[in-house]
């Protein structure tokens, strides 16, 4: 469904009344937004509902997008605030790094090396490892590695300085590695054979 138009050109067409141009945007960003939402809302059905809500909110607010930042950065900011509102409505706690004992609790709740369940792909391994991290860590890793946002853009989305984003990103990577070593040692050894 590629039209050869860039985001800003597509948005100009949507603003001019061409609703179908928005379908191209949705098609392109659905995976990124859905993956980001999954970091906050692990249930796939809920995540899909929230992701739909993100695109509808973005459409209604399109007049506020002035093109000074990348469209994706603006969209992910909406995705993050929509997720936080959803969690607030559902009263599900967002696990922050600052919360004492959260990492220990996560380790206890996790299901490492479930017998009989084999991790066959890197994607599956990554999804399981993300599940062991807190939301702050998995969000920043998703924004950087899957949503392809720069540190400046991550700073804008999370409301922090780019340097703080860099530090947080490194800490998140370290923690992810620790979790993988702790819970998936066999899979890490076989990583190159996936």
């Amino acid at each position, binding site marked *: 469904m590629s039209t050869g138009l860039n985001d800003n050109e597509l948005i100009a067409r*949507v*603003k001019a009344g061409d*609703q*179908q141009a*928005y*379908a191209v945007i*949705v*098609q392109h960003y*659905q*995976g*990124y937004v*859905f*993956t980001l939402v*999954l970091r906050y809302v692990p249930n796939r059905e809920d*995540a*899909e509902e929230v*992701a*739909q809500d993100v*695109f*509808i909110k973005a*459409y*209604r*607010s*399109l*007049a*506020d*997008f*002035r093109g*000074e*930042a990348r469209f994706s*950065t*603006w969209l992910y*900011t909406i995705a993050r605030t929509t997720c936080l509102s959803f969690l607030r409505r559902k009263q599900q706690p967002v696990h922050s790094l600052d919360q004492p004992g959260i990492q220990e609790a996560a380790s206890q709740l996790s299901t490492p090396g479930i017998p009989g369940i084999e991790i066959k792909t*890197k*994607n599956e*391994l*990554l*999804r399981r490892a993300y599940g062991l991290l807190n939301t702050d860590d998995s969000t920043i*890793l998703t924004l950087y*590695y*899957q*949503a392809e946002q720069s*540190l400046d853009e991550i*700073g*804008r989305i999370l*409301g922090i300085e780019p340097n703080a984003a*860099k530090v947080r990103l*490194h800490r998140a*990577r*370290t923690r*992810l*590695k620790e979790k993988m070593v702790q819970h998936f040692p066999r899979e890490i050894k076989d*990583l*190159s054979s996936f």
Partner: protein
Amino acid sequence: MMKEDIELRIWNFVEGTCSHDEKAAVQQHLDTDPEWQRIFLEVKEMQQLLAQEPELPSLRFTKNVMEEITRQQIAPAAQSYINKRIIWAIGIFLGTIIAATLAYGFGQMNWKDNSAPVKEFKPLAKLDNIDFSSIFSNNLVNGFLLLNIILGLFFLDRFLANKRRKHQSGGF
């Protein structure tokens, strides 16, 4: 050097977030040090693992969104319905009130009182010279001042909220 430091430097190296000099220094270590080479391979593996394709929602996702979009309209930009003239008028009104209050206060001061010796501490204004009782005994004035305080707090709150929002959005 600790393993964590080496790892951080190698991450910055592979992701191109370090300076040219730092890049050359890391490259030199990688050319000569087996420990650095081992960590480099670990980092590369981790980087490949992290760069997986995003997950996809159900096949009906786009269709569902577009069905909802047909019932929606793009809202006018926030800037278009905020009338700046009203904001300015309120600002001028508040400024005038503050200026009038200050002018009245200064008007009550005794500027020509030279009775005290020069080196002795002398306050600029003798507060007891101002007859506050005649001002604040009036309910209308009291109500007016209270209203101004509430308005002031309201606008301060709006100002701080806008500032925070601008900082978070970074201006899109």
